[in-house]
């Protein structure tokens, strides 16, 4: 078995850091709830009797050897400008939000 893991601890600073990485802006009440919930989840994981994986190679995909290359040719079936919703697009340009005075 792997060595028992120490209890996780998420302090408020880590919640702020993760929220910034995730580009979220939770208020104080939500930060408290998130911290409690994430700690609870991590503790649940740590409590499990994980198998010994020291010599196990991780897999990130059901069929790890399946990715294939295709010719490097433009094949886009649509104009990216079509993605722009009419409420924020004008004459083929994107109206970006105002972020500076």
């Amino acid at each position, binding site marked *: 078995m792997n060595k028992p893991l120490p209890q996780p601890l998420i302090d408020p600073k880590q919640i702020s850091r993760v929220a910034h990485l*995730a580009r979220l*802006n939770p208020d104080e009440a939500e930060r408290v709830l998130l911290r409690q919930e994430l700690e609870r989840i991590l503790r649940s994981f740590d409590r499990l009797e994980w198998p010994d994986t020291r010599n196990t190679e991780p*897999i990130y995909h*059901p*069929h790890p050897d399946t990715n294939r290359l295709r010719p490097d040719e433009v094949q886009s079936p649509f*104009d990216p400008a*079509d993605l722009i*919703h009419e*409420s*924020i697009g004008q004459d083929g340009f994107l109206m970006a939000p105002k972020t500076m005075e």
Partner: protein
Amino acid sequence: MTQIHELGALELGKKIADREISAPEAVRHALGRMDLLDSTVNALITISGRSAYQQAKAIQKRLDAGEKLPPLAGVPLAVQDNISTKDILTTCASRMLHNYVPPFSATVIDRLVAAGGIVIGKTNLGEFAMDGTNETSHFGPVLNPWSTDHLAGGSGGGCAAAVAAGEVWYALGSDTGGSLRHSCSHCGLTGLKPTYGSVSRYGLVANASSLDQIGPVAESAADCAAVMALIAGPDPKDSTTQPMEFKPEPVNLNGLVIGLPEECFLPDLQPEIGKAVQAAAHQLAVLGARIEPVALSLGEEAVAAYCLIAAAEASANLARFDGIQYGYRPADPKHDDLSDYYCHTRQQGFGAAARRWIMLGTLILSAGYYDRYYLQASKARRLVKENLQKALAQCDLLLTPVAPSTAPRPGAGPDDLYNTCLANIFTVSANLSGFPALVLPCGLDHCNLPIGFQLIGSAFSDSLLLSVGTAYQEATAFHQLRPPHVGEKT
């Protein structure tokens, strides 16, 4: 006399081909059912009646001219609202994409439409297909046509509810940890989570890319097979798709070995589910299959690995939604900088449960947590796959329950992510390994709520699964049961 909505998809397709029912008539009937029922069950987010009617008229014209079309031509279908449909809203049941109209269609849609399929509606789901009950939808939860005091299950409850309520004849949904299978089981339907790589994911709004798969939902395995025949196969736009042969043929169950993992019959499994699943195994034995006990650990580790991997991949996939090019834009006029704008947009655009998933995924991918959680989960994933392969080396298929209980009531589920994931204990292994899994109805509980069972096969055994499912349904009638009193307003 059988009403149009009581026909299976293939049966309706045959009647349309034989010109006993016209394609526009089928569309009108579906729209009538939606008008009657959908304010109750809330299965649909968008109804594309006008374009469906235009397509139906075009198909009818071709049929009237004597053209022979594929078996499901003219049959209206619904599509889960996280599968892109050109010129039809695709919201993912999120405020973030409440106004998003894709300029392209998913490959599965292109293939079905080319074969005469008529997309008539987009179905409700948990936000970005991330929750197990569909209660996190921005458009409200989907109620179960069998009992509107219960949920249709999730995340893809809208697909199953639309078919069970007779609003459409089949649907396409996605399955990341069992959502398509759970909602089929809760609504008395047949549904396939195909082998990863057998159906293109191009145009599916990604939740967890290495787990997601698009699959059919219908009354019967034969209907699902007809849909798979149209959508399966390699797609240059999805490099994870594989060449595969999809040819379901009548199968003789004599000599087929079906493994029954005793570990599945947990003490907290609803007793009626245990009995119904055992009865399904007995029925398959009567048809000639040999039922053998097999060892298969379906421990919490698999669920934990799923939960971590799904959260990590979802946090990465949902990073693309920032409100700049499309989707939700907050009304606040000023922001300190662009980063501040992104944060506001995402905080307001995503619901609370989606934000929780994103935070968990971002946390375990960050320094100090990656090795201990994400890497550990990715190693456990290999063990889960090897474990399943080992069990399938002893038999042709595995038979398990789908869910520990029948359809839940609104608000009755656990309120934390980990315990929510635990409801997927029978289904996540198929997603982690990429193996196919078929759900078939096998009974009702004391509340008259449907019970389903699951058959899991080796990679690319989708044809065999559907053939065995068809053989089972030729000998049973559970798939023909209808929700009682659906649509009657009391």
